């Protein structure tokens, strides 16, 4: 089983993902260069956080044109596992692999802090080791994480059980106060309809060892391994 972590110019969490997968989850992992035109040989692809192309136009906007994105779209269509974390989520949304868009945080400021996420569905390749309603403590670090979709799209996301994580308080309540960035329905992460592409703003790659404040992020990578093993 092989994980691939994509490097775009301006990515800056690729080493965190790499380290989390190799050292903590214990799976082989290699980097994928954004100019590559194929992701053959990989079982799962990670789009890491950072500021691809500086996020200068819009977050994720220029990265979606990288040659590797065409290969990743094919890979996803064939059922391959793709996870986009933070900037990776923004890129997936820009590329149309996930619905919606990520707007500027309502507070207009970049925010780096721990959040509680409520697991809304276990029927994905990323949450199969969790229980429904399980709370995860995972940090965010973004200025544009405010999830938006038009009302029709949002309805479809909810109807199809595509909202995977919501921001919650310490007791698991999904409240406006627990929403750090203004995301619609407190959405912190979604999957596509096929349920093999996940985008999430919080960083499981920063919460994989208790010394970092939480190891809850491991569950997501381990769920992916679990999904690949049982497939």
């Amino acid at each position, binding site marked *: 089983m092989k994980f691939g972590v994509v490097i775009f110019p*301006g990515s*800056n969490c690729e080493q*965190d993902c790499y380290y989390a997968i190799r050292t903590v989850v214990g799976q082989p992992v290699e980097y994928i260069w954004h100019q590559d035109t194929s992701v053959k040989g990989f079982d799962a692809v990670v789009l890491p956080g950072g500021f691809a192309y500086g*996020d200068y136009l819009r977050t994720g906007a220029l990265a979606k044109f990288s040659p590797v994105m065409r290969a990743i779209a094919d890979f996803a269509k064939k059922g391959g596992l793709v996870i986009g974390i933070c900037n990776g989520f923004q890129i997936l949304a820009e590329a149309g692999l996930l619905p919606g868009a990520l707007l500027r945080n309502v507070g207009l*400021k970049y*925010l*780096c802090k721990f959040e509680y996420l409520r697991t809304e569905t276990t029927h994905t390749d990323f949450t199969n080791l969790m229980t429904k309603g399980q709370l995860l403590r995972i*940090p965010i670090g973004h200025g544009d994480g405010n999830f938006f979709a038009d009302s029709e799209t949002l309805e479809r996301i909810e109807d199809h059980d595509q909202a995977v994580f919501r921001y919650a308080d310490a007791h698991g309540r999904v409240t406006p106060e627990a929403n750090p960035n203004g995301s619609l329905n407190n959405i912190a992460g979604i999957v596509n309809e096929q349920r093999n592409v996940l985008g999430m703003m919080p960083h499981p790659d920063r919460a994989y060892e208790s010394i*970092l404040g939480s190891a809850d992020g491991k569950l997501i990578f381990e769920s992916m391994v679990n999904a690949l093993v049982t497939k």
Partner: protein
Amino acid sequence: MTVTDEVLTLHNLTESEYQKILAILKREPTITELGIFSVMWSEHCSYKSSRVHLRRLPTKGPAVLQGPGENAGIIDIGDGLAVAFKIESHNHPSFIEPFQGAATGVGGILRDIFTMGARPIAAMNSLRFGPLDKQQNKRILEGVVGGIAFYGNCFGVPTVGGEIYLADCYSQNPLVNAFALGIFEKDKIFYGRASGLGNPVIYVGAKTGRDGIHGATMASAGFGEDAGAKRPNVQIGDPFMEKLLLEACLETMHKGLIVGIQDMGAAGLTCSSCEMGARAGTGVELDLDYVPQRESGMTAYEIMLSESQERMLLVAEKAKEKEVFEVFHKWGLDAVTVGRVTSDGLLRVRHHGQVVAEIPNGALADEAPLYQRPLLPPKATLSSRLDDHSFLDGCPPALIETFLSESNDWNKLLKLTVASPNLCSRRWAWQQYDHMVQSNTVVGPGSDAAVIRVKGTKKALALTLDGPAYRVARNPREGAKMAVAEACRNIVCSGGRPVAATNCLNFGNPEHPEVMWQFSEVVDGMAEACSFFFTPITGGNVSFYNETFGGDIYPTPVLGMVGLIEDISFVTRSSFKKAGDSIVLIEPVTRRVGKVDLEDERAVQNLVASAIRDRLVESAHDLSEGGLAIAVAECCYSNVERAAIGAEITIPSHLEVRKDLFGEFSSRVLLTTRKVAELRQRAEQMGLTFHNLGKVGGNRLILNYESVKLVDISTDELESAWSGGLPKLLS
């Protein structure tokens, strides 16, 4: 060209400096040469007023691999690894344009680190502003914090700590000091040397524009009425470009393609080329026609003096030029050969086929004038009124009066105090900084020192910045010693051993004898304390001319201390851990305010260090501004590991209640322990005073004084006053 007095004044050169130029060149300089001399001999680049003093700082030690003189200092941390670190000021640019000034300050210090081959793994910053009742100061603070966040977050370095301090003297002259630290294998260090005759000199990174021309000379002159007129084109930070430069530079280094490298910081192409030549004893020949330019019609003068950001100069082996280009192209960057290394020791600059400058590199880099400026102790000093409670300096007068007179409602007083400008939470600022990227942050902003683990080892690094400006203003020599003592104490409380330091010396006008006296005193105090604690200074920065309309700022040394934690299991936080833990105060027998006894300080630190190593300690917090009451409150607040927690303690009476609660006595620490007797025995053996104050627990902070319950307040209420302080001041 005729060099008139006016031309010299514009270049901040004195008549005698001009005579020296004539003697070196044995002819009249061209305008380009005059520009080159003016920036290289500016205070900022040549340290002409400070060098005679800086020599007194201790710079050597068993761990020091590189002391001052290179882009950053380097220390050995074992396991074949080394860390490079340095602090730099970007004060004047941050006053003109707070966001971009601070952003480019961060960019500059990061370049200093990766220029040496190290990957930046941590950043911090020390900031000073005027009080926030003035709209302009709010704008500057918001801009500076925003700029630091913008640059560091995009670049991908965690900003793990720092300080913000407000006082009147910074109103027209904010201070922005940026620190960065990088890690590498200790046999992979790169230096800024242009060696190897005939080797190509390669320019990489952003194109050159008319940005910040005379930035270095500007940083070497105060702001007066004509500040507006002196404004150069503001430098704009491009963190994305810098991130690409980082990756591409490190790749060329790891592939062994280059022999020397230096960033283009202050004085741009001029400084990087002549310093690289001077260090290697070679000449450098540049042809400016090849320099990538963003604006049309730039003169040689402008190209040589431009301070456009995100540019580097490298020297490669002749045979590897092509491979260097390939690496940069892979990262989407331009790389252009703009010159060669020569044997004649000259910086020779051609433009449009003509030689426009020809100056010995050594003269520029090493023969700058040196001044032994007059020193004079100032007649009037700051009043002693706030000595016991220095945090009040910079607070609104009404708050100061209330604090000093209120003696009934101690709940109210404590709430007021925790929310006061210099004690309230800085979370508003550091939450905007990505402090977790790279997944090494064990202790982020908000504790005594930040702690970064070193992947692949069981070690961690403890980092802190300290600049007790009020103390230094009151007594420069003692204040400087206190800065060192506090920095070391912060490291020790985090479970580490202080190893080495860098310093940023922010001062007023060096032509004022009082300022030079302060400077000299600070250097002596720092030298004494750093020698005492075996923490050599491996580099730093001097920022003079921090004045506006003739008023000098406080003498403001900022110390960046790096400590080593041998085993990550020693990492200790300042915050209380668990209900039931005993809270103890440890202090020297003699209480002192505004000065420090180094032997006493060492005893306290030795006790804490050994107690942590022997697992006697649950938490450790150094007492500083606001004294015991504030320290206890800080230990109660919520953190990444737990919600807010309460405590009940009885404060031993000594003098009078206000001083016993809030007095800022030196060399004190607050520990929690589950082994009171053992800890007490050790402390007393070492001749220290030990007070068992009380216990952690509940959800209220209760402070008893003798038999009176002075404070009884819910920790949530206290924490919200504390964390709401800064947002409220800014709203």
